[in-house]
């Protein structure tokens, strides 16, 4: 058994903070367990154990990557806590994974909450944008990274200094329905963003293309690239028809529109 000094716990926290920023900004991937394991090992004076544990944890998280914006169990805390407990309690890397995963799931829930809670920030940034206040926008860009740094510092520092039992108890004290509620709200939130986009882009004559894109994805399970390429073919067709018909006047081609929409839905 090792004991963690306050200095070591602070260093672990600092590294977690830096890695927490890198997970979303920079993406140099110093936040992956393979690197984090080595760094935590060096901080605790057990570099070899750290490197080996980091390697094992890296394999565990190999498949857990952010696909289409969905967030897997948090890889930063997984790497830091996993290595920490592997060194402190002499657990085998494979067992340390079991300890690390619940923490990472909890941290991921907290991050979901953060990404939900920070949506209103966008509306302050909107105002700065319209005013052309780029200095303010530059400053605002750092709000979230700073929060991430502080958050990850705390979430790594506490387990390092108090050990696993206290922290697990604290995590369990949060009612699970609240976490579930934030998770559900986070999942629904892009609808607000799309609605704002539609408010700008929507015209009733374009509605069929939205519908076609939706159907292609919902029923056809087509990837977005396929949908974009299909839409590009229709758009190109539309473009050439319009160009050949009326080179100068703005499109009176209501009938041409109807034709090509028909064509598109048949194509799917």
């Amino acid at each position, binding site marked *: 058994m090792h004991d963690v000094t306050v200095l070591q716990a602070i260093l672990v926290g600092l590294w977690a903070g830096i890695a927490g920023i890198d997970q979303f900004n920079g993406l140099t991937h110093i936040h992956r367990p393979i690197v984090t394991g080595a760094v935590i090992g060096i901080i605790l004076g057990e570099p070899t154990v750290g490197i080996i544990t980091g390697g094992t944890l890296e394999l565990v998280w190999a498949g857990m990557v952010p696909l289409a914006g969905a967030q897997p169990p948090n890889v930063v805390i997984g790497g830091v806590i996993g290595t920490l407990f592997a060194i402190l309690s002499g657990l085998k890397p494979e067992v340390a994974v079991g300890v690390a995963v619940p923490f990472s799931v909890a941290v991921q829930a907290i991050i979901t909450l953060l990404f939900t809670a920070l949506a209103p920030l966008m509306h302050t940034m909107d105002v700065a944008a319209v005013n052309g206040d780029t200095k303010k926008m530059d400053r605002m860009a750092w709000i979230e990274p700073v929060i991430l740094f502080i958050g990850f510092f705390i979430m790594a520092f506490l387990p390092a200094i108090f050990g696993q039992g206290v922290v697990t108890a604290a995590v369990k004290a949060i009612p699970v329905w609240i976490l579930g509620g934030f*998770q559900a709200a986070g999942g629904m939130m892009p609808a607000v963003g799309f609605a704002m986009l539609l408010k700008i882009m929507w015209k009733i004559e374009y509605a069929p293309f939205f519908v076609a894109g939706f159907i292609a*994805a919902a029923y056809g399970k087509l990837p977005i690239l396929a949908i974009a390429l299909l839409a590009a073919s229709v758009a190109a067709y539309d473009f050439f028809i319009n160009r050949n018909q009326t080179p100068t006047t703005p499109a009176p081609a209501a009938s041409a529109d109807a034709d090509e929409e028909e064509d598109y839905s048949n194509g799917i």
Partner: protein
Amino acid sequence: MASNEATIKEVDNLQIPDTYEDPSVNKVIDKSTLHKMVWRSLLLQSSFNYERMQGGGWTYSLIPGLKKIHTNKKDLGFALFDHMQFFNTHPFLVTFVQGVIIAMEENKENRSTIRGIKVALMGPLGGIGDALFWLTLLPITGGIGVSLSQQGNIFGPILFLLLFNAVHFGLLFWLMNYGYNTGTRAIASMRENTQKISRAATIIGLAVVGGLTATYINFSLNGTNGSFAIGKMKIDLQAGIIDKIMPALLPLAYTFFCYWMLKKGRSPLTLIGITLLIGLIGSFFGLFAWPAAIK
């Protein structure tokens, strides 16, 4: 706007004009501006949230270019505001979109054309990027690193970082230049058809938004109380009823509910509040799934 400084409420109902107060086209983007934008693209997700995703970081990354292009303050404001909308793509491919878009901005293309092209590019590149980087580059470089790490060799992590970032930064810079040159060339060949190009871009853009609506929004009643029983028959609300009517029905309905509320003049902030409320209430009654491992 009455005063010079807009408020949140005014901004919500702002119409973005399609053309510019100052339509003069000047070649102002140089290599160093492009490179500044590459470095800023590292903060693409700095304002990440579920409403706009990378919208804030995307705008942040364009600032050096937009400031040089739009010396008219009103034009700059509308350009920045336009880019603040929903944006999401792969962080390793974003510089290509930046390059194309900044070439179009420099040429003072109509705002609707720029918007359409942006939306049309971001979705597909997101999907390609996931496959290329998270499912290919990361496992390969990680695997090489791990094989050394498992012997306790410190060169495991170092080699991983070197290999990974050689590809990462190489791509970021190359794609920026490639995107900018592509954008410039494409614009030259489509000059006389602006109106129609704008139309084509909107068609692609809206089809992509339709597809994203079906795939990016998670809204399903798959919690513990998401099913009920009639006699011996157990009926699943999500899989048994809603999905049978139409897949992604709830995401579609909720998107149009939000659209309708916005049209009625409700602010997006109200909608965020409503979304949170629905999430919490629904979760309390067990309609939404709860995170598993911390029960």
